[in-house]
């Protein structure tokens, strides 16, 4: 039973690490746009036909 003196702080530390990762992700603006990334994922990338790149302008 004395194990809880170690186990509980360790559990809290693991939880704290996950929380730190979450805060990093939030500060990295990963929760800013929740609509685009799921759409981006379906564009399995097919290589574009080889064409000379053009400068800008039109």
């Amino acid at each position, binding site marked *: *039973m004395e194990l809880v003196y170690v186990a509980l702080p360790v*559990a809290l530390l693991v*939880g704290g690490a996950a929380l730190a990762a979450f805060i990093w992700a939030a500060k990295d603006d990963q929760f*800013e*746009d929740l609509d*685009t990334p799921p759409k981006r994922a*379906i*564009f399995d990338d097919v290589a*574009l036909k080889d064409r000379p790149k053009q*400068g800008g302008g039109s």
Partner: protein
Amino acid sequence: MSKTRTSPEVDSSNEQACAHCGLPVPAVEMRAGDPIQFCCGGCRAVHGALHECGLERYYDLRDRERELEASAEPALVTGRGFEHLDDARFLAGQTSVDAQGVRRAELRIDGLRCGACIWLLEAMPRIVRGVMDVRVDSARGIARVAWDEHVIRLSAVARRFDSLGYQLQPFGDPDAVKRARAANRAWIVRMGVAGAIASNAMAVAFALYGGILAEMDLAFRLFFQWCSVGLAVLAVAWPGRIFLTNAIAALRTRTPHMDVPVAFGLVAAVSAGIIATVQGTGSIYCESAAMLVFLLLVGRYVQYGRQRRAREQVELLLAIVPGVARKVVREGSADAARERIVEVAMDALEPGDVVEIPANEACPADGRLLAESAHFDLSHLTGESQPVRVERGGPVYAGSRVLESPARLEVTVAGEETRAARLLALVREAGERRAPIVELADRVSAWFLPTIFVLSLITIAWWWPTLPADQVMARAVAMLVVTCPCALGLATPLAVVAGIGKGARKGVLVKGGDVLERASRAGTLVLDKTGTVTEGRTRVIRSIGVESALAAAAALEMHSAHPIARAVVDAFGGQAEHLNRKAADVREIPGLGIEGRVGRSLVRVGSMRFMRERSAIVSDEIQAYAAECKVAGLAPLFVAVDGRVEGVAGIGDPIRPDARRTIARLQRAGWRVVLASGDDPVVASGVAKTLGIEARDAHGGLSPEEKLEFVKRAELARPVVMVGDGVNDLAALAAADVGVAVRNGAQASHHVADVCLAARGLRPLERFLSGAHSTMRAIKVNLAVSVAYNAGGAVLAFLGLVNPLVAAILMPLSGLTVLAIALKMPSFELPDAEKEVR
């Protein structure tokens, strides 16, 4: 009249679809013999550009996406130069550059429609040399662009985007965007931290209550208690601090605020926990405090997200007025003056300056016209669907678009004082004045902690004389746990989020729970005519007459750019081509009609007055038909061949086929339906009559300011739901209790409105109203269930029938019940009658 043909409705089923956007191709744009057709020049240009770049895959992706979002919009290619993006001040202020000369900027992007657009834009670096990276944020319409300064200028990048139908624009106030993003980040962190602490506190509490049941040693119990207290202190001091600071501010200013009882409850719960733990006796209820912080923050965040969107999108409104103006500068002496055009920022304009406006662009300021005369599109400002002709010296307003040819303007009013800017100020004001609705969850939970404290005190006081102390405390603990406000706190946000999610899947985008709450009761429904009730396009609705005469009319009208002429060409242009009719000696008589030679006959097309003045013979049949048209709210257009009227076309903006029945159903549901239109009052009342709207509720010729006043009128039954899609409706949309915009309308209207409908027409509107109603019902059921659960739990705990462990296991069940109700409740369904018809 052997070949007389009556067409009740112009058949549109055999129209060809545009190869780019899928909309029907109008007759004028038809190119004979071409297997692929386009609805407009924009679509043609974009289609060409896509093929040239090898990006045909866009269409595959788009078709897949379109199954999800059924919306089609023609592409817009402005052909602008975008030189203002190369402005040194803009580059210095809003972009950053690294050592390799790669510049990065965050820009607003217009023209996004679906996921395929994201793919297309993000494929740009592979097509355009010098563009290093493009990332699109489709939710906010933001593109992050990185480009190599040495290879390409930003204006060239923007022109490339424009050629594909997307327009880049700098933000009006980039700092405000950054501030809003930082605030959002703070909210997410707060919510995440609160959630993590609450779940850990719950885990510790499980151990604690389980231990009490198993008669755990006091040492272990104290250890768990200290952990629990520590977590609760953390929850209240870190993410929950916002409640404390809000409460202190409210106390200082002596304004009542929901956060005051919340803060009191949190502090009381935590201090009681500390005291109990220090003394080593009694029970603690710290996990309730941690959970409450989390649940309240979830509710607040939902509310905050809506406000943020509303605020940041008001910024986008400024896009009605261009950011740059082309100023005409005179150099040299008075007699040998040379002119030069310089691009200046809009803010730099002053009264007296002369500016040139390129064709199809918006005026940067209010002013007087210097050209002989020009046509202006005022639809953004006033909702007038027809172009307006302005004579030399006549007033022109910022935001109106000059049509066909460039024009010069002497600026009279610039900057914040223009009519468009004052309109925007009204929008902001109206948006701010709207009373904030306190989330129902807040209102309930604010009184929650005090209530359960009192209940536990009663439990203790009641049983103290008759039961041993530890049993009394066990009952008190059970009371606290079983009444944990999980379900109560989640009831409203869950129902709202589930409702908003269901709506979004059915093409109804609702920006917040308070919107659903406000729209759930029947009140006044204010409809804008153009585009909402009608299709928003002048068309020939019905016609009678000799086929060859109508074809001749089309041949004649091909020479005119008037919207009525376009409608005639749309309807009969095919026949004119088929019969090979060509017009010559065409003369347009302003306000009356058009005349010219087609073949060997003299053909006149125009109003009754035109026919009378040219003494054309009008038969009784024609007269009767014209009268019929007028009754139906259509303007009759006569076609005379060699002095004899041989055809009539009823011209109008066709009413949507679903409008009448939908309005009748809404009226039965208790809504007072009102028509408020910027169009001609006679037309408005004609449309109202067709739709079954009472004559006193039909208002035409309203300016944007009048529309705003109208919506704010006190005698209208609340809530006032305003539906509109023009920029002229913006202020009214913002001021109404619920503003509903229709997609495909003006971009800015989506941002101000509380609700966006993915499709035009009234059926989606009906879907929204029924969704609001059923979501409110889900909220009420949820609240009732959770209150009943808590009340029942409290009684059981009071009687000692619930031990702390069972209570701690049962407690989340109430949350799950509430979740199940929120998800399973049918919502945003169309009324049954409609389904049968379909």
